């Protein structure tokens, strides 16, 4: 038992690894210790003086974040002295806080608000006017800084120092005039800016993209996996289902893959899911005119086209943006059941697929490359990677092509260009969630697909680790299907009367 220590935390014996702090132990035991400056992903600063706990035998209260648990220690988090310390600590933080909660985006998820309701609830005793500081400072393409709201917890400074190693932020001036800022007119430019917004316990850092868009208490959250690259960060998508609008993405803690962070590119992976950029209904070219049709009609026409051309003249064009379960259902139906032998992988022309920025982002911007390859390895047939060979694919003259289109627009910039190369095939069925795809010529039908936040399943990330898309929102496009649902509809016996 040399490498663990057992101590008493609020009448309960707690055993934790040696070297853990009381704060870490309390987190594990789900004992709440209010804190601002401590963050599990950053070093200990001990500046907010808020996580006070009572230790038997100590002359005064100790801060839990910097207090190593030792054998036989007796810690209490609920004595009257501790509560008194929280109250005064909070009042100290609020001395120069502007209390502009009505216009602050953090309201609703703010540490100051939460702890005021939990441990505060006192009338302010401040009689002096507040210190005024710069407000709404533009600090980068995605950041706005309000130095008045800042409580100088230094989380952001430590993030810049330890995670991105860019050291762009610092605390300037002293005393009640101390402010967070960059050196001179410098702006923060790295790809991890919005993590500063996440870790800021108050509303000092706000996101330009989310600023004033919505109050946080209206948002619903679902955990899923980021489709932006092959790292597969665990994320939480925030949306309003009543408006069918997605508002923001936040990282979720996953020590194995993304820790506590995610990149800014991943934050943009929801914009294409919103109603205005979605393909709402199935469309078909009928006698040279594009028409909106019910999904079963579009699927029926695809089925008839396959039956007429035969499986040997049918090809699949598959991007790596779908879940393992969807590939399974897709290949089960088309390859095993119908006997299609030609499969093109559609993963773009990017050359730097092995790129890695040292933190999270990877060059392979397809979320499920490993999953696609794993599913492909289980089936027989000609599996070509369609880089510049899309033209060759047309030259091979498949009569029917079913294309599972890439989902996230900014990671698949090659998509529109590739669509143009498909002209000449007699029946092309695009399975996509993007409205822009309907502008392409030479396509026969468009089947509306669900986005990543609207389905459950798994991605396999670059290591081949299973990443679970846990929860799903109802689809923002009314008649969108997941690939599994579309294949189920295709596999149904054909109705005798055509719709």
């Amino acid at each position, binding site marked *: 038992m040399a490498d663990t220590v057992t101590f008493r935390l609020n009448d309960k014996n707690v055993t934790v690894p040696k070297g853990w702090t009381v704060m870490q132990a309390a987190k594990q035991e789900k004992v709440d210790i209010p804190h601002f400056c401590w963050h599990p992903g950053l070093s200990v600063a001990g500046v907010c003086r808020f996580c006070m706990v009572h230790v038997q035998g100590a002359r005064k209260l100790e801060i839990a974040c910097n207090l190593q648990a030792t054998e036989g220690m007796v810690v209490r988090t609920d004595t009257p002295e501790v509560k008194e310390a929280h109250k005064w600590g909070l009042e100290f933080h609020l001395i120069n806080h502007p209390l502009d909660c009505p216009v602050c985006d953090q309201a609703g998820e703010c540490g100051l608000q939460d702890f005021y309701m939990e441990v505060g609830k006192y009338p302010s005793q401040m009689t002096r006017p*507040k210190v005024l500081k710069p407000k709404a400072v533009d600090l980068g393409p995605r950041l706005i800084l309000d130095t008045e709201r800042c409580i100088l917890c230094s989380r952001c400074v430590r993030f810049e120092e330890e995670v991105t190693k860019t050291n762009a932020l610092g605390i300037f001036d002293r005393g009640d005039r101390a402010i967070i800022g960059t050196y001179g007119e410098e702006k923060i430019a790295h790809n991890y800016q919005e993590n500063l917004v996440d870790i800021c316990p108050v509303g000092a850092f706000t996101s330009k993209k989310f600023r004033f868009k919505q109050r946080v208490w209206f948002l619903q959250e679902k955990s899923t996996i980021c489709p932006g690259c092959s790292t597969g960060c665990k994320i939480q998508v925030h949306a309003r289902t009543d408006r069918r609008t997605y508002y923001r993405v936040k990282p979720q803690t996953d020590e194995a893959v993304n820790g506590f962070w995610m990149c800014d590119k991943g934050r943009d992976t929801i914009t294409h899911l919103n109603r205005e950029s979605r393909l709402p209904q199935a469309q078909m070219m009928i006698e040279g005119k594009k028409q909106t049709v019910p999904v079963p009609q579009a699927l029926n026409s695809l089925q008839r086209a396959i039956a007429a051309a035969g499986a040997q003249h049918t090809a699949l064009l598959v991007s790596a943006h779908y879940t393992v379960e969807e590939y399974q259902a897709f290949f089960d139906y088309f390859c095993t059941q119908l006997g299609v032998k030609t499969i093109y992988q559609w993963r773009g022309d990017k050359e730097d697929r092995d790129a890695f920025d040292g933190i999270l982002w990877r060059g392979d911007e397809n979320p499920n490359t490993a999953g696609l390859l794993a599913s492909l390895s289980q089936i027989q047939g000609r599996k070509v990677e369609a880089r510049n060979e899309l033209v060759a694919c047309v030259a091979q003259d498949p009569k029917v092509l079913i294309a599972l289109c890439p989902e996230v627009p900014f990671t698949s910039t090659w998509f529109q260009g590739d669509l143009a190369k498909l002209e000449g095939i007699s029946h092309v069925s695009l399975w996509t969630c993007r409205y822009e795809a309907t502008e392409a010529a030479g396509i026969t039908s468009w089947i509306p697909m669900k986005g990543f936040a609207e389905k459950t399943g798994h991605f396999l990330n670059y290591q081949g680790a299973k990443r679970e898309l846990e929860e799903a929102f109802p689809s923002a496009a009314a008649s969108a299907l997941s690939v599994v649902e579309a294949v189920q509809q295709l596999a149904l016996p054909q109705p005798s009367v055509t719709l």
Partner: protein
Amino acid sequence: MAIIRVPRPPRDTNVFAAAWGYTTTICTGLTLTLTIFFRQLLKREKSETVEWPEQPATYGERFKGKHFLTKREDGQVRCTACFLCATACPAQCIHIEAGQHPSNEIEKFPVRFEIDILRCVFCGYCEEACPVDAIRLGPEYAIVDTSEKKWVYTKDYLADRPALQGGIHSIKPENEKHTSIGHEPTAGERKSQAHHGHS
């Protein structure tokens, strides 16, 4: 489940005795009504009835009628788009779209502020929730319109309709962001204020 038999109370056979209570009360009420009716008919007493809509009838300012948005000193709407009214609204009839104001002093303001008056239940929660006295319910009660579109009151209508005669100013100070909220004057300040004759 068991059935418990409870004896009925004996039925009152005297109908007149049973109805006596009602009859007297009705007569008392009718007497009062008729007395007032004749007194007003003979102009002995002032009648509260007005021939609306020919004669105007006004309610007090505290009446919860048509909403309006108050203004700042410079004529812009006072609303800071905090969404508290929309949050409190039980009918969910307030739709706000917030935006960045060109002036950093104001920061957040409503680009769109709409009330779907057909959904509104005139509970006044929006008025109560507002931290800056930006929305109030006024004494206008006659709400008549023809098309459905006109029942959605826009920001301009709520702040600037003719009945408001150029708009009403908010009672909350505009620079609340930059002074200490709940600032109690110190003993010294209080003394000097009393000396200068304004408290």
